[in-house]
């Protein structure tokens, strides 16, 4: 293969000083492998936290929000445009459930992007066993839909979610409740709702998430049991939970669902602002670390090229004397930087991949998290190479410009 003469000179310079070239490339390799490792760790961690967050909260929750009295009745009465002031407005007493919930569920599941819809009856209740009483929330759910949405099966310690279908008055409780009340599988537990209803349920499953607060309060029962606990009919539903394809679109989809149903639709961003903040903070930390690494690698290349130019100043002068214009000299030295960058980038993605692979096998064993969450995401590798090569170009540009400005007369005459 015949290269352009500038390329040939650049390659000869690189290959005649292999050690320096390798040291410079190693700087880039280090930067890029760290870039890939950190990106993989961050994406893995973010994905893990997202997944675990969405294991208890839906992307969108539709419920009947409490309304405060306003003056629309007064407007109707006076039929004028005068300004009405309502002194000390009160919460309206109203039906807590959703009207025609199964019709709404049907309507919502027809919407594009919607992947799962499930109704729920939430009951504030006390768990009783002997003389001990524990405050908590009983969720009346369609257990199979709930499992599809939140992967309950993955959190089950004892029993399985299907047990709820077999045992009508079954209940799946958190590990915290079981521990506090000293209950085991197939024991009975008495539930008292805040409105006074009371029922004896049978424990058919025990789950544990990584969140203690949930394990100590939340339990799952069949939706009909929750309805009768509240003394309501079969059409009483308090929440509809919706999952969509891309959870980042939740805010805008929630607005759509609000328009369709006429009820409050709360997206996960609203209910979990801290989650979003944590993602952002991690991104800032990570990007500053990567920035510093690439900066250091860039300085390495800058230094080595500067030294090369200092050593080769006579050769640069002679090239210019024999008719190489400044831009050809720039090209010779910039190309060296680019080849160093490419070499470093290539080895960097290989090493980065292996570091990621190794770290993904480190045992953590905290809660449901067994191994460090790492993601293997192709765009990270593309980004790494792009940033790496851009850094080397930036680092090589200034020495190359300096080389182009060498005055052959001064150098040759000495």
């Amino acid at each position, binding site marked *: 293969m015949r290269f352009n003469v500038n390329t040939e000179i650049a390659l000869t310079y690189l290959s005649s000083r292999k050690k320096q070239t390798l040291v410079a490339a190693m700087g880039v390799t280090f930067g890029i492998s760290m870039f890939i490792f950190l990106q993989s760790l961050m994406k893995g961690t973010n994905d893990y936290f997202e997944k675990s967050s969405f294991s208890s909260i839906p992307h969108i929750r539709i419920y009947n929000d409490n309304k405060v009295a306003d003056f629309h009745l007064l407007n109707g009465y006076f039929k004028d445009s005068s300004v009405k002031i309502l002194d000390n407005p009160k919460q309206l007493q109203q039906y807590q459930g959703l009207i025609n919930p199964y019709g709404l569920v049907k309507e919502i599941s027809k919407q594009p992007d919607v992947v799962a819809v499930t109704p729920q009856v939430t009951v504030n209740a006390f768990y009783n066993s002997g003389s001990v009483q524990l405050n908590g929330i009983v969720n009346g759910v369609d257990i199979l839909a709930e499992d599809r949405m939140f992967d309950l099966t993955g959190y089950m310690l004892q029993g399985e979610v299907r047990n709820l279908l077999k045992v009508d008055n079954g209940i799946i409780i958190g590990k915290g409740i079981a521990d506090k009340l000293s209950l085991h599988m197939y024991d009975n537990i008495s539930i008292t709702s805040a409105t006074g209803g009371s029922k004896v349920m049978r424990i058919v499953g025990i789950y544990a998430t990584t969140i203690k607060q949930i394990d100590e309060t939340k339990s799952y029962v069949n939706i009909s049991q929750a309805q009768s606990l509240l003394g309501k009919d079969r059409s009483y539903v308090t929440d509809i939970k919706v999952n969509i394809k891309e959870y980042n679109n939740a805010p805008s989809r929630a607005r759509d669902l609000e328009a369709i149903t006429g009820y409050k639709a709360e997206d996960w961003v609203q209910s979990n602002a801290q989650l979003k903040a944590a993602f952002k903070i991690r991104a800032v930390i990570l990007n500053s670390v990567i920035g510093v690494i690439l900066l250091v690698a860039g300085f390495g290349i800058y230094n080595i090229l500067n030294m090369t130019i200092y050593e080769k100043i006579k050769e640069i002068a002679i090239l210019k004397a024999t*008719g190489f214009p400044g831009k050809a000299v720039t090209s010779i030295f910039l190309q060296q930087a680019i080849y160093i960058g490419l070499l470093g980038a290539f080895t960097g993605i290989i090493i980065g991949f292996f570091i990621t692979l190794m770290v993904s096998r480190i045992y953590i064993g905290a809660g449901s998290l067994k191994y460090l969450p790492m993601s293997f995401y192709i765009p990270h590798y593309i980004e790494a190479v792009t940033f790496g090569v851009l850094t080397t170009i930036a680092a090589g540009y200034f020495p190359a410009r300096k080389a182009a400005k060498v005055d052959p007369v001064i150098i040759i005459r000495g």
Partner: protein
Amino acid sequence: MENIALKSIGINKYFSDSVKFQALKNISFEISKGEFVSIMGKSGCGKSTLLYILSTMDTDYEGKLEINGIEVTGKTQNELAYIRNSTIGFVFQFHYLLPDFTCLKNVMIPALKLGKYSYDEVESKAYEKLKMLGVEEQALKQASKLSGGQQQRIAIARALINDPAIIMGDEPTGNLDSKNTSIVFDILQNLSKEFGQTIVTVTHDDDFAHRSDRIIQMADGEITTGHH
């Protein structure tokens, strides 16, 4: 007029390190095509300064310079680089070969830059030049492994590779023993006689100078003898 290779009209050159100093004073002369000219003079008389202006590398002067009847004064650096590449060959006191390359590559590089011929053609031309200078056996050695005389001959081959109209030498034999000096002189004379190439050298060597066609004598930035 068409027979003039190099023409300078009223060239003045100043150095202004601490005090302004006039290095060249109103230099005007012509050199015909195929002429072998030596520029002589004491150290500091301005002969090298003149040569670097003639070579187009130094552009900081007053006056006018014409090469092959074309005015080069005021051209851009890129245009001048092209002129040097295609029409001027240099031989310096020190060989200034690129030590990382073979002798053959050193000779080929200016021609590869010019891009007039294919790689293979350039290679065979380079061999031809090396053969003419009697150093073809050294072609594939690193430039740094050769003796001084051989290196200088490689450097001459490099100066010749693009068949330049003008060959300029800055004490091309200044670093050589008398045997090699005589070889280099014969080569240059041969180029001028047989190939009609114009040769301008700055030299301290009286023998060398007296064997050339014309001597331009300089003193204190002025030409004393040899205008034409």
